[in-house]
């Protein structure tokens, strides 16, 4: 029922209700600082000293209040005043040490000095309860009194104002020497400290001791609130003590508590005034408490909103942002897209001007392996580099001890420094992003590698193709040269051959009578000329065929007529060799075929010449030429009972310049071009020559070619 007790005080001494509220507020504020400081880093001297300072302040506030309660007996009052002096004895020392340590983890003073200082405080504290500090207290009215100080008050003054003064001086010196964030923190701390302690020294010490007035002492606690406000501001806006997030809740609850107390007190006070007599104040208090409990949630949300609006403008939900970032990192593998999306989210949520990622080898090691925050850096080369690059935060991305990239952030749009939340977010993001970037890099490398490989392969194939082309060109050139040579030779040979055979015919046709011997000689010349002619013609055909200039002249051919023509060409030879020649190319149902008559003639002449020439001398030779239709082809068969072709030689029959090793063949004139040219011509007609042969029995050659075909030219 503490509330009810408080309210009895309120009712009885409504005049000092405000004082009480301030006392409670001050105590709470200091408790907040103690809790935050010790929770964050209990090992740090700054944190511990700040906590001690707040404890002393809270105690002093309470004792000071007790000493000022109206209508208190002088002895009791004196006791409380002495308690105040007792409790505040270490004030100066605490401030001196705090100033020395701030904002670091330890003081520069040695253990002896520290114990010496506290020893002095202990003496002062003991003296506080002796009559030598305050000999007597005289109540002048219900709310006022005077004190008679003794010599020991000087001891107290030295320990309080002297040490504090040295502390201030130290802080000022430190402030002037510091830079960046630290400077701001020291400045805020210093101002808070100087303003509040100067004021409370004036009101609660100088005024009391020198002017004998206690009227102003109630202002003491509000003055310490000045310090509280400055420290809080430094904590929230400038990361003092690194307690950021903790503050949110602390401030919210402090204000909530104050609000509850205030509302309850106001309610009870006003209700007891308005309500008729007979209603117990306790009941009113309970009613008020119930009302407050009912409205607690509403109040809390109002305060939460209020504090967030004041302290956390532009805040974001860390978890939500991280979730977004994580999703992007899971989705993207292409480094540019990945970073593009991360960048967008960071810029939007943290409201930062320029966020960059350096992931290439040349740039990523530039800032080292440590996270750098511009405002936390002391003046120096590194800070100057950051300033020049307009970078405020450097976040190296490290995975498996390798710096895979570095994220740099520019100014925040608000112009403020990076909050603890920002830095926490980045800290959590860094290792995840490092892995994601590393993966993307690997992917990128594989792609680059593929690209290079592809280029190399292309380059090589290109070179190879060029070499092949050169080789081919070379070969083609040689072939062309050869064909041109053959062509020109054939042409030049043709003229004299034509002249010889022409003149021979003139001799034959002349009216002059030739002797038998001359006629025989002439016939020999004639045969040689014929061979020469056919050799020239074969060479010419080969040259044309190999240079793709073989011309095919299609026309309607009657097989029977073809047979007659062939007979006319080889009849003489067959007769001379005593070979029985039987040619019958009539095919039932085939009146004409479409092909090149000249070429067919040439092929058949070759086949027949061979068949007639290569006969066994001891048998009666015969050659049969027949034709038949096989689907859309005409097959002309030349069959003989000559000595055939050995199996060994069968594969080479159609090769250029092939001649059998047989003595009989060697004895015969021939160039070995006949079958080669025949096969070439046959294929130019869309047909082919095949054969079967048995050595000593004879050969069968089949020429097959299409019955119908479209005229075509330039068959190779």
């Amino acid at each position: 029922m503490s509330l009810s007790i408080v309210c009895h005080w309120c009712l009885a001494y409504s005049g000092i209700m405000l004082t009480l509220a301030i006392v409670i507020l001050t105590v709470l504020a200091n408790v907040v600082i103690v809790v935050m400081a010790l929770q964050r880093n209990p090992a740090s001297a700054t944190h511990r000293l700040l906590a001690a300072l707040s404890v002393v302040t809270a105690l002093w506030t309470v004792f000071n209040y007790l000493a000022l309660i109206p209508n208190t007996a002088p002895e009791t009052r004196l006791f409380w005043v002495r308690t105040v002096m007792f409790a505040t004895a270490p004030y100066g020392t605490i401030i001196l040490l705090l100033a020395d340590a701030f904002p670091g983890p330890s003081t520069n003073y040695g253990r002896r000095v520290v114990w010496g200082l506290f020893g002095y405080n202990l003496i002062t504290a003991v003296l506080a309860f002796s009559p030598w500090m305050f000999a007597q207290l005289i109540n002048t009215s219900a709310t006022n009194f005077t004190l008679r100080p003794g010599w020991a008050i000087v001891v107290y003054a030295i320990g309080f104002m002297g040490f504090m003064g040295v502390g201030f001086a130290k802080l000022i010196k430190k402030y002037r020497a510091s830079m960046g964030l630290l400077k701001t923190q020291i400045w805020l701390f210093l101002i808070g400290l100087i303003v509040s302690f100067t004021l409370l020294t004036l009101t609660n010490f100088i005024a009391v001791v020198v002017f004998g007035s206690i009227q102003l002492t109630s202002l003491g606690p509000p003055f310490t609130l000045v310090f509280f406000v400055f420290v809080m501001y430094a904590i929230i806006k400038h990361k003092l003590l690194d307690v950021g997030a903790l503050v949110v809740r602390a401030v919210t609850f402090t204000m909530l508590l104050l609000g509850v107390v205030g509302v309850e007190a106001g309610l009870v006070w006003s209700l007891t005034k308005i309500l008729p007599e007979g209603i117990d104040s306790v009941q009113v208090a309970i009613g008020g408490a119930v009302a407050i409990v009912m409205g607690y949630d509403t109040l809390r949300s109002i305060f939460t909103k209020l504090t967030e609006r004041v302290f956390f403008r532009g805040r974001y939900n860390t978890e939500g942002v991280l979730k977004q970032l994580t999703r992007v990192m899971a989705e993207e593998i292409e480094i540019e897209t990945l970073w593009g999306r991360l960048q967008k989210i960071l810029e939007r949520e943290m409201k930062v001007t320029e966020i960059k990622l350096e992931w290439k080898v040349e740039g990523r090691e530039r800032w080292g392996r440590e996270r750098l925050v511009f405002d936390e850096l002391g003046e120096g080369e590194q800070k100057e580099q950051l300033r020049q690059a307009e970078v405020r935060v450097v976040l190296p991305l490290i995975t498996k001890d390798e710096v895979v990239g570095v994220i740099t952030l520019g100014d925040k749009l608000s112009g403020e420094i990076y909050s603890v939340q920002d830095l926490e977010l980045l800290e959590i993001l860094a290792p995840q992003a490092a892995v994601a970037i590393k993966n993307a890099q690997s992917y990128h490398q594989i792609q680059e590698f593929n690209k290079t490989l592809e280029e190399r392969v292309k380059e090589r194939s290109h070179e190879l193709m060029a070499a092949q082309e050169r080789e081919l060109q070379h070969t083609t050139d040689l072939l062309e040269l050869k064909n041109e040579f053959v062509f020109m030779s054939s042409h030049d040979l043709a003229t004299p051959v034509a002249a010889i055979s022409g003149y021979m015919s003139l001799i034959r046709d002349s009216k002059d009578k030739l002797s038998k011997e001359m006629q025989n000689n002439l016939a020999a010349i004639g045969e040689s000329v014929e061979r020469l002619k056919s050799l020239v013609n074969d060479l010419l055909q080969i040259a044309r065929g190999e240079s793709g200039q073989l011309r095919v002249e299609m026309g309607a051919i009657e097989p029977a007529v073809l047979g007659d023509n062939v007979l006319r060409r080889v009849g003489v030879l067959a007769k001379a060799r005593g070979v029985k020649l039987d040619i019958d190319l009539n095919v039932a149902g085939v009146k004409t075929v479409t092909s090149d008559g000249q070429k067919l003639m040439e092929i058949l002449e070759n086949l027949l010449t061979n068949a007639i020439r290569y006969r066994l001398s001891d048998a009666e030779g015969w050659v049969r030429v027949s034709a038949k239709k096989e689907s859309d082809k005409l097959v002309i068969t030349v069959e003989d009972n000559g000595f055939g072709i050995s199996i060994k030689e069968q594969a080479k029959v159609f090769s250029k310049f092939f001649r059998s090793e047989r003595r009989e063949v060697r004895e015969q004139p021939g160039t070995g071009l006949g079958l080669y040219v025949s096969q070439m011509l046959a294929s130019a007609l869309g047909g082919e020559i095949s054969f079967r042969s048995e050595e000593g029995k004879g050969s069968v050659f089949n020429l097959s070619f299409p019955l119908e075909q479209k005229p075509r030219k330039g068959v190779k």
Partner: protein
Amino acid sequence: MVKILIIEDDPLMQRMYQKAFGFDGYTVVVAGDGVEGLEKIRSEQPTLVLLDVMMPKMNGLDVLTKIKADPELKKIPVIMLTNLAGSADAEKALLMGAVKYIVKSEQEPKAVVQMVKEILAGYTRDNVPTQ
């Protein structure tokens, strides 16, 4: 009187055809190259021309082009003489207005004279067989 102009650069061939046609009582005029041939066509106004394809100075095809471009000469029938069977030039000559081409090594002089005789007997450009 039928006058044959033989334009042929090879003197042996020239003389051979001259003899063959001489036997049969034709008047024969010869020229040793294309340029001389063209001059002789104009000056001699032959009944028929035997024209070799491969010749120095001006080849047979060029001579043929000139003949066919001249309104006074283009009616004179031209027979091409060629060394090689199945050459593209011969076919081209037919398209350009020659009445026939003869592969020299394939036809005896007597046969050539016979062909000329046939051509002159029934000569109109349209019904002369090409081969």
